[in-house]
């Protein structure tokens, strides 16, 4: 693999120190339209490094708890979902859920509105200023905020997302479980040249236009490669691999799996959102001791 930068730890310590300089100053506002008999939804404003004001959706189940929690780290899309599309709303009756928009996503797009495609290469030629340095900090801030909820059971906190889920769970304590689907920051430059598909195609576009910046891009990406984070991860992990033969299949992810110090399960995609989704839901429910999974599955997935 590419060398882990000698100052990898310092780079991220500095990032976290910058984040710590800004108090979160959370504001919670109930959203009656999205609240139900089984869960109350809040819009959350919180400050991250910059300073930059973010937005998230926090759902708290009815009842006394403590509840397991799912933290949906920022996705690579403009839209912020309350829970991922296709997830049964009733999942909010069993888990606290918190989804966060990183800087640039909708509801967190002032003053910076991200473009998709475009975000992945925003200031990628400068590791210190790369946009994802702030977004990773945003994601850490989100988890920190979630962990302050008194309704939360700290022994059952699942972070779900793409590469950011794994990075976040490594950089800050509190995640007990991770469900991660690498898509952006695993062997990025190496895999990008093997595809025309976005978002990795953004890197190809960038390097075709600015070939002289290739070395700078490689340097920046080295700070974000999941293999560099892997030894620091302790949370029990479900790695969602691509289907056999695809860029992120189980074979391709082997170096990452080998580098993880955490207990890890690899699920190779069956190219079915039903089968893959059901597997992840079952895994989380088992890990969190949810006994009535059928009740919180989408209707068309139930037995």
């Amino acid at each position: 693999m590419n060398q882990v930068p000698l100052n990898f730890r310092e780079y991220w310590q500095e990032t976290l120190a910058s984040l710590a300089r800004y108090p979160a100053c959370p504001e919670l506002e109930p959203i009656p339209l999205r609240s139900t008999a089984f869960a109350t939804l809040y819009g959350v404003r919180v400050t991250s490094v910059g300073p930059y004001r973010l937005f998230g959706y926090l759902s708290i189940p009815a009842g006394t708890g403590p509840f397991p929690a799912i933290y949906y780290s920022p996705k690579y899309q403009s839209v912020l979902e309350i829970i991922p599309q296709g997830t049964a709303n009733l999942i909010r009756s069993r888990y606290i859920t918190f989804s966060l928009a990183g800087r640039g996503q909708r509801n967190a797009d002032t003053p910076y509105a991200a473009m998709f495609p475009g975000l992945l290469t925003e200031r990628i030629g400068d590791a210190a200023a790369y946009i994802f340095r702030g977004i990773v900090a945003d994601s850490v801030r989100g988890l920190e905020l979630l962990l302050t909820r008194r309704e939360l059971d700290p022994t059952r906190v699942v972070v779900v997302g793409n590469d950011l889920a794994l990075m976040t769970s490594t950089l800050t304590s509190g995640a007990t479980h991770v469900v991660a689907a690498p898509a952006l920051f695993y062997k990025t430059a190496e895999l990008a040249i093997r595809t025309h598909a976005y978002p990795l195609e953004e890197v190809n576009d960038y390097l075709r236009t600015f070939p002289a910046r290739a070395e700078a891009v490689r340097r920046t990406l080295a700070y974000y490669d999941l293999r560099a984070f892997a030894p620091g991860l302790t949370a029990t992990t479900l790695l969602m691999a691509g289907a056999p033969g695809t860029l992120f299949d189980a074979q391709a992810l082997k170096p990452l799996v080998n580098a993880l110090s955490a207990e890890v399960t690899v699920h190779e995609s069956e190219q079915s959102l039903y089968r893959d989704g059901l597997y992840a839901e079952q895994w989380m429910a088992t890990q969190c001791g949810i006994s009535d999974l059928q009740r919180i599955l989408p209707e068309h997935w139930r037995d």
Partner: protein
Amino acid sequence: MPKTVPADYQSRVRKPHDFDAFWDDVLRQAAAVPLEAEVVPDPLRTSDDVEVFEAFYTSLDHVRVASWYCRPARRAERLPAIMFLPGYQMDPPIPKEWARKGYIALSVAPRGKLRSNRHFNPGYPNLLTYNIVDRHTYAYRGFYVDTWRGVDFLLSRPEVDGARIGVVGSSQGGGLTITTAAMRPEVRAAAAGAPYLCGFMDAIELTHTYPYEEINDYLRLHPERLAEVENTLAYFDGINFAERIACPIVMNIGLQDNVCPPETGYALFNRIGASDKQLNPYDGHGHDAGRSRHGAIVDRFFAERLLSER
């Protein structure tokens, strides 16, 4: 195992008596708005084999609509075109892959989407219920027209063979494919996957997932508005557009679709007016609707109907 889905599912939606008059009036209003088509080269996204442009045109209510426009770098004088329509929360992609297959390709960002949200931005969630009690200002009135105007944009391009235009999309893109194929006779072939915006009132009982759950949220807060909501949605339901579709069409649904219930897919398909229609239901698949297996069918479908008519 999940339950079996009835292929003869009957939707509760009824077609309003003035459905055609409503849309004829909307089309009249849209026709009065100049298209003002514009293409701007995007050198960052352009490669040796595909030229990429940001494209813009004006739609209903004078909303400026953005899109991505791609064409093969090496091409014949006139080519068939594919219009790609986006999912509900998808950021419209750059359709380079369609250009690589030999088509001019347009990927539309209807109002409210990223790059088309300066004049109209109801947000996500929210688009589905924005002004849902008034068909004259409901979000999808303009949203639908934005996609139909995409056909006008393609017809304005000298390199497009206007007799060979296809439309494709999945989820919301599938629903928009249905309405576009119904309302624009210039569309010669259509491929709709996991169609959303079809059987709204059925879907909110069959499933409780977003985005349809937005309607349940709305009705929980405003139960007294049920009749108005149902009335508005009847004008926008893809099932009520379906009988107008005359072009060849291929559809795919997932029988374990947790977003767009497969029952509504069946109800839609049974109402499509075209004689050349084909439905591929995929057991063991959810909202992907069997994409990994169905992609080749769509490629072949368009190639036979658009590429081979040279």
